[in-house]
């Protein structure tokens, strides 16, 4: 057997739409790559935690461990010509788009070889050539941008789509509803992905949302509720959504997921939820363990082979950290680069300007 059909953990729930089938096609190769990629993300985030505690990473740092299946399942359903834009919990999305561990750790430590030259930091990762549009720090403000990306895709008729990700906290931002209205009016190929990890910082969803059924929040826009801890369900939903938006305009996907870490490094993550809750999710719904179990059940690899993969990843991550530490800090002149693209035909600004060059058409 090369193609295997596996049932998702739970059925999808649709809003104004017939949900896709629970049966998902996959292969040994795909499941092993899911395992490796998610384990790499997990290891990267755990290492970032240590680097933060060692004071090599400063400022804000939001970790994604627990939510890996969303990034990986989404990538499995789309291509790099499709676009992704997300909020500040962006390290793993960047990695999923083909970013490297060295770029991640360098950026986190503010080094020259970071993906944003050390000028962006944890919340500002981008990868233009792979369709990753960031990496945004203002909660919810990335969603209108994502709808704008989808507008540009429709404008240039290239049959690609945009996934605009936001959390359950951002779901209460007015601009989401504004942008969704415009996208629906203009039939834009945009998928609004609500990564519902159930806490906006320390505020539980039910304390911030009168209706925490985020997939229904679009009213006139169809929605789908997905088990975001099941990578195959995410893949199925994203594939379904991509086809849907190219024909019919926007859709909302609510990914039911969970973050193990606190909101950011200053949040132990235990004041507003119980330790039992966290360990319960780890034991019953962990996205990596689910794939491990599938691989073992179908005897695609044995337990020791998976352990070996994890050991390799550990080495890979340590090596990336070593390289990132060797990368120098940005040059002082970089303070002033990338503020402006050199103005329209103007060479220099300020009192000592020698000449003005305006290119006439």
């Amino acid at each position, binding site marked *: 057997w090369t193609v295997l059909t596996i049932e998702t953990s739970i059925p999808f729930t649709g809003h104004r739409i017939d949900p896709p089938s629970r049966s998902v096609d996959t292969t040994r190769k795909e499941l092993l790559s899911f395992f490796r990629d998610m384990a790499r993300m997990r290891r990267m985030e755990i290492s970032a935690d240590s680097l933060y505690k060692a004071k090599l990473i400063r400022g804000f740092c939001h970790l994604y461990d627990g939510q890996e299946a969303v990034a990986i399942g989404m990538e499995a359903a789309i291509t790099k010509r499709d676009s992704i834009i997300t909020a500040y919990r962006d390290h793993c999305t960047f990695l999923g788009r083909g970013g490297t561990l060295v770029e991640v750790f360098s950026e986190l430590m503010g080094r020259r070889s970071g993906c944003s030259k050390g000028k962006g930091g944890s919340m*500002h990762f981008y990868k233009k050539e792979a369709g990753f549009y960031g990496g945004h720090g203002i909660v919810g403000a990335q969603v*209108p941008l994502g709808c704008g990306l*989808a507008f540009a895709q429709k404008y240039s008729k290239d049959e690609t789509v945009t996934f605009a990700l936001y959390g359950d906290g951002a779901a209460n931002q007015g601009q989401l509803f504004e942008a969704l209205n415009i996208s629906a009016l203009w039939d834009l190929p945009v998928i609004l992905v609500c990564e519902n990890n159930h806490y906006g910082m320390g505020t539980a969803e039910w304390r911030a949302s009168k209706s925490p059924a985020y997939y229904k929040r679009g009213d006139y826009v169809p929605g789908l509720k997905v088990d975001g801890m099941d990578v195959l369900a995410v893949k199925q939903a994203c594939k379904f959504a991509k086809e849907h938006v190219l024909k019919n305009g926007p859709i909302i996907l609510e990914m039911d997921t969970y973050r193990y870490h606190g909101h950011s490094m200053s949040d132990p993550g235990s004041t507003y939820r119980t330790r039992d809750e966290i360990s319960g999710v780890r034991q019953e719904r962990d996205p990596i363990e689910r794939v491990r179990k599938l691989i073992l059940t179908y005897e695609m690899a044995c337990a020791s082979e998976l352990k070996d993969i994890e050991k390799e990843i550990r080495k890979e991550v340590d090596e990336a950290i070593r390289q990132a530490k060797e990368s120098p800090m940005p040059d002082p002149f970089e303070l002033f680069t990338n503020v402006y693209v050199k103005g329209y035909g103007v060479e220099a600004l300020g009192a000592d300007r020698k000449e003005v060059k305006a290119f006439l058409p």
Partner: protein
Amino acid sequence: HEVLLFEALREGLEEEMDRDPRVCIMGEDVGHYGGSYKVTKGLAEKYGDLRVLDTPIAENSFTGMGIGAAMMGLRPVVEGMNMGFLLLAFNQISNNCGMLHYTSGGQFTIPIVIRGPGGVGRQLGAEHSQRLESYFQSIPGLQMVACSTPYNAKGLMKAAIRSENPVVLFEHVLLYNLKERIPDEDYICCLEEAEMVRPGEQVTILTYSRMRYHVMQAAKTLVNKGYDPEVIDIRSLKPFDLYRIGNSVKKTHRVLIVEECMRTGGIGASLRAAIIDNFWDYLDAPVMCLSSQDVPTPYAGTLEDWTVVQPAQIVAAVEQLCQ
């Protein structure tokens, strides 16, 4: 050929839309209605609904969508029906428009134009009479220009569209019907250059937008009284053209700034600081600055007149400076 200022802006838009298929326009009532000040009149018929987009009344989001489209390579021109409405989009303009080029380490450019009418009109009330240049001036990465004549309106519009930087183009509600003969040939204006309006020897008057006309009215009186003021329309509100401004200061040694912006934290305050920092040694008198009063613009005509600088005040200030 002779055009009104709003027609000059439209010509600029139309020529750039012909030249570059990536240029599109979005905003409230820019399409079927034709723009509340007629700047986009007829463009929807010519270019269709995909390039001239009527948006719902949702400034925050359609400005954000313009920025997203710009990240992907389009060159959107976003109209704020009135500058005051753009406060609803302040986050998008500041955090995304201004900073994305930097935070992405140069990966993305945001070639967007945000434009619309601002300034104190005729009894439009506080919310519709705002000068947002003072709010926007500290946003890094944003360029700001103010047009004042049909000639520079068209030239700046075209340059702003071609610029890789996000540009805010300030228009003035009272200037849309100014008439001027402009060249038939294609031309653009430099976004970072001040405009010499009247060369003179005695005192440098720096102004922009509508106040240019109050200054010129005052200049007439001043010339009759035997003064020889130099009048410069600074045009580029960010960054300042300190080259042209500096050369003028070196010649006259006296500076008067006349603006419609607010007294506190306005363009004049920044300009005065820049002049003092850079040209202190050339100054023979303190830099004077006439600005609007720090009040919400009142509705009543008389009160409104007292809010903005009047020609008589300019005359008095120059006489004082030249004593």
